[in-house]
């Protein structure tokens, strides 16, 4: 069936089987391979993308269910003026190693900071608790999210002055 999805602000129309998973629409049909998958069972969160502004596990969403809706992926984080602060902070805090969980972590972290600009470590850990990282022991991911929060608060204060 034909579906139309807005992905990173761009309208994309495709004819798909109803059973096509959203993660495969993004990766195979739209060639947005920044969204990964790691487990099939909605445990690992490597496939996290935003659906209507909220991160979900795209291995457990049908592409047809996204018809008429908005998707944001890691490829949609960078703006005309450069990387999103959360991307910068992941680099600055060594928040990634193999880079496989990173896109999903970034999408959840961005969502958290939009909701909670000054999260505690506990809130950060809770927010990413549905996403597995095998490399970092989470330490520097937590640091990176805290770092981004601080940088954005600083920027907001400078902007307010």
């Amino acid at each position: 069936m034909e579906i139309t999805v807005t992905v990173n602000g761009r309208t994309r129309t495709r004819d798909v089987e109803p059973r096509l998973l959203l993660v495969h629409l993004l990766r195979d049909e739209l060639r947005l391979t920044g969204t990964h998958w790691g487990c099939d069972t909605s445990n690992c969160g490597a496939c996290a993308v935003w659906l209507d502004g909220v991160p979900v596990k795209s291995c457990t969403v049908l592409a047809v269910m996204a018809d008429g809706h908005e998707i944001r992926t890691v490829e949609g984080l960078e703006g005309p003026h450069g990387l999103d602060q959360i991307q910068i902070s992941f680099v600055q805090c060594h928040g990634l190693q193999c880079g496989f969980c990173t896109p999903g972590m970034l999408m959840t972290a961005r969502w958290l900071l939009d909701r909670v600009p000054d999260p505690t470590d506990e809130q950060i850990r809770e927010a990413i608790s549905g996403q597995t990282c095998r490399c970092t022991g989470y330490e520097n991911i937590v640091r990176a999210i805290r770092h981004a929060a601080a940088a954005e608060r600083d920027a907001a204060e400078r902007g307010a002055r």
Partner: protein
Amino acid sequence: MQLPAHFEYQRARSVEHALALLSRHGPEARLIAGGHSLIPMMKLRLAQPELLIDINEVPELGGIEITEDEIRIGALVRHTQLLDCAEVGRSAPMLHDAERVIADPLVRNRGTVGGSVCQADPSEDLSGAFSALRAVADIAGPAGERTVPMRGFFHGPYQTAVGPDELLLRLRVPLPAPGLRTGSAYRKVSRRAGDWAVGAAGAAVTLAPDGTVAEVGIGLTALGAREFVATEAEDLLRGQRPTPEAIDAAGRAAAQHCEPVADQRGPVEYKRHLAGELTRRVLRDALARAGGR
């Protein structure tokens, strides 16, 4: 990657439309909302529906409404929505306790309250919680609406009162009469954050003005309790003063009357112990919240 088999897909625009689709396509049609139970089963090909009826855009199924005497939770309310609703946290803190330990934030963003209870997984936290709270389910079908109490909703593992041509509209949680002291709490033991429960318990206590227990609901999850409740323990407490001894006795009754099964989460002996231990703890928590201790 694991993938579902072929199926047809239709999006329902209203409850009426969803019911019409269900009637037209018979038992091979399944409703889908959050999909976090159904899609994994379809990937494993344990479920192979011929038609999926997407109810995500049925407006009547959404929303949380709190009236003087009940909380109405639409079947399509996402777990995150329930958790974000501060008033629910105040009126029925057990629901927030339970929601906080269900899966993980991303799953909670998508998964629905109605989907969770209709899946009737023996390890579903909300089943224990709503049963403890004596919620009722409003169900729509070809013959109109009917109401089924949660204690009566679960017909066995993965089986509920919702017929193949019906759909769950909402759950309603009764609130105690104003002025009565009340409290509720839920606790879960799991091997890891986001894992299904090894065992979990929820308790809702309403105290009479004289300090005795006017009403109590005790829910048990993943512990092989009939309909997710520990009725014998409730009966022991009702009308009694909630002394440590009475709470211990309730815990013993809960442990005695559940029928857990062994799996990789633990042996029967341990799970039975948890039924007692967690029952005691949630009763104490609920009483503390009721200001009864």
